[in-house]
């Protein structure tokens, strides 16, 4: 029978060829990323509407965030996209050691991002800036501003957007560990490496979301040369 050809390692049995499998996986990931755009899109919509409604509150809220830390995180993620791209490149060449090396770098950078995020969140909690009814009390540590109601709106948007993003980073790191394990076991060859590339797509997407979040949340009204 035509479909019982020699078993190609990594080829799932319902696919006719490796090309078909790779094409399916790639299209599948792009579609999934499209759903993620729609998912985050709802929050970007809320951001747009409320920023138009409360420009001053957003300005004040943005000043509560640390541009250096956010900037550091942005650089960290961009570099991690670079290391991820290198990992994909070496997977296509079949070079296991370099692949693992770059995956490890990506892992480290991703973790750095999350650690920085943890410190940012911790500081907010300490200053009672998490906008839940039992903790939110900005007046405790800051002079009362005329816009504190609006700042609360900014803060919940900040937490929801960066929180959702951080969740996607955590999931990404989990998947990355799986990919690293598979790489370690020698599962990826010149012929079969699409999981690395497909995971790379996800990682780049999470990076791109941050690249939008950073200016919208951290850089509102930011002027180089201390216009804060």
């Amino acid at each position, binding site marked *: 029978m035509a479909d019982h050809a020699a078993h190609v390692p990594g080829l799932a049995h319902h696919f006719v060829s490796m090309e078909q499998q790779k094409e399916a996986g790639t299209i599948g990931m792009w579609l999934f990323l499209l759903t993620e755009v729609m998912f985050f899109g709802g929050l970007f919509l809320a951001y747009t509407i409320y920023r138009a409604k409360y420009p*001053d509150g957003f300005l004040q809220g943005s000043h509560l965030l640390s541009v250096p830390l956010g900037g550091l995180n942005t650089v960290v993620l961009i570099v991690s996209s670079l290391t991820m791209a290198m990992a994909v490149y070496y997977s296509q060449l079949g070079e296991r050691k370099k692949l693992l090396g770059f995956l490890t770098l990506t892992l480290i950078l991703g973790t750095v991002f999350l650690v920085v995020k943890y410190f940012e969140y911790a500081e907010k909690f300490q200053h009672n800036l998490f906008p839940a009814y039992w903790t939110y009390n900005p007046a405790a540590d800051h002079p009362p*501003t*005329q*816009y*504190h*109601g*609006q700042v609360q709106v900014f803060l919940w948007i900040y937490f929801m957007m960066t929180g959702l993003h951080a969740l996607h980073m955590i999931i990404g790191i989990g998947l990355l560990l799986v990919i690293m394990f598979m790489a370690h076991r020698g599962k990826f060859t010149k012929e079969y490496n699409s999981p690395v590339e497909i995971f790379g797509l996800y990682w780049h997407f999470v990076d791109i979301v941050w690249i939008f979040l950073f200016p919208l949340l951290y850089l509102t009204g930011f002027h180089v040369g201390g216009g804060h």
Partner: protein
Amino acid sequence: MSLFSFQVPFMPEQASKFAMEVDLFYIALWLLTIGVTVGIVIAIFLFMMKYKRRHNGEIPEQIEGAMVLEITWSVVPLIICIGIFAWGAKLYYEMYSEPKEALEIFVTGKQWMWRAQHPNGQREINTLHVPVGRRVKLTMTSEDVLHSYFIPAFRTKTDVVPGRYTTTWFEATKPGTYHLFCTEYCGTQHSGMIGTVTAMEPGEYQLWLSGGTNEPPAVVGERLFSSLACNTCHTADGKGRGPKLAELYGKQVKLNNGTSVTFDDTYIRESILDPAAKVVENYQVIMPSFRGQVSEEQIAQIIAYLKSIGPKDSGTAAAAPAAAKPAAAKPAAPAKQQ
């Protein structure tokens, strides 16, 4: 029979100026629907009978399609649809445009009752008395959840939203009593949040209106302005800690961020509840919020008062002489500066 109505079975009474046109529109659409449906059903029945399969091995002549037909039955329905859209949009534009010289009534919805307040202060719960032959505009807000003010006989409906004012208007054409329903699900007694709308001849309406012992809202508002100590900062001479509010209703006010805003109902209400949101130029942010201390009705009364002391040409029916009598409405003496 009134010029503005005809009774058709299966339809509510036509009791407003809108109703007849809405009903005509409705009937026209049913005629279209029945026409199209019957047409298609008859065609199908005929085809079913004429082309019944006669033997198992039969394959009929295959027809791929006909561009002319496709275009016709795309374009013709499109034109009909655009026509329907235009009629609907025209009606909607009339229903949602600001009516000129309308009698203004203020309505509050809350779980699970309707409160209405007339310009002269007459209040009612779960009922609404309106004069026939006069445009009536309802300004509405909710104290809690979403509601909706539906009068089937008038063919009007607008949602009642917490945190903002929505408006609806109509002109009743036939005296009578009609249903009033809440039509936005609002909790347990949603189906109990109903009442009646009574349209009356203008003379009878005036009689009903003066039957109450309530004071005009502007008078109550003036008392509130003093009892809540608004006048201690918003002094009449303009030298207090807050801006002078007389002669201001309807005018543009400059804010401390460079933009300006109209001193209207919405801005007044916002300033009472969230004074830091928009602050007038050259003034400090020290006005406290009165959220939780004033009801929506009281806010409306304060607004009525501020309207009554506004620039002379901005008055509406609400500030008509019958309401705010200048003699009785002397502002409280300006408090001493502190």
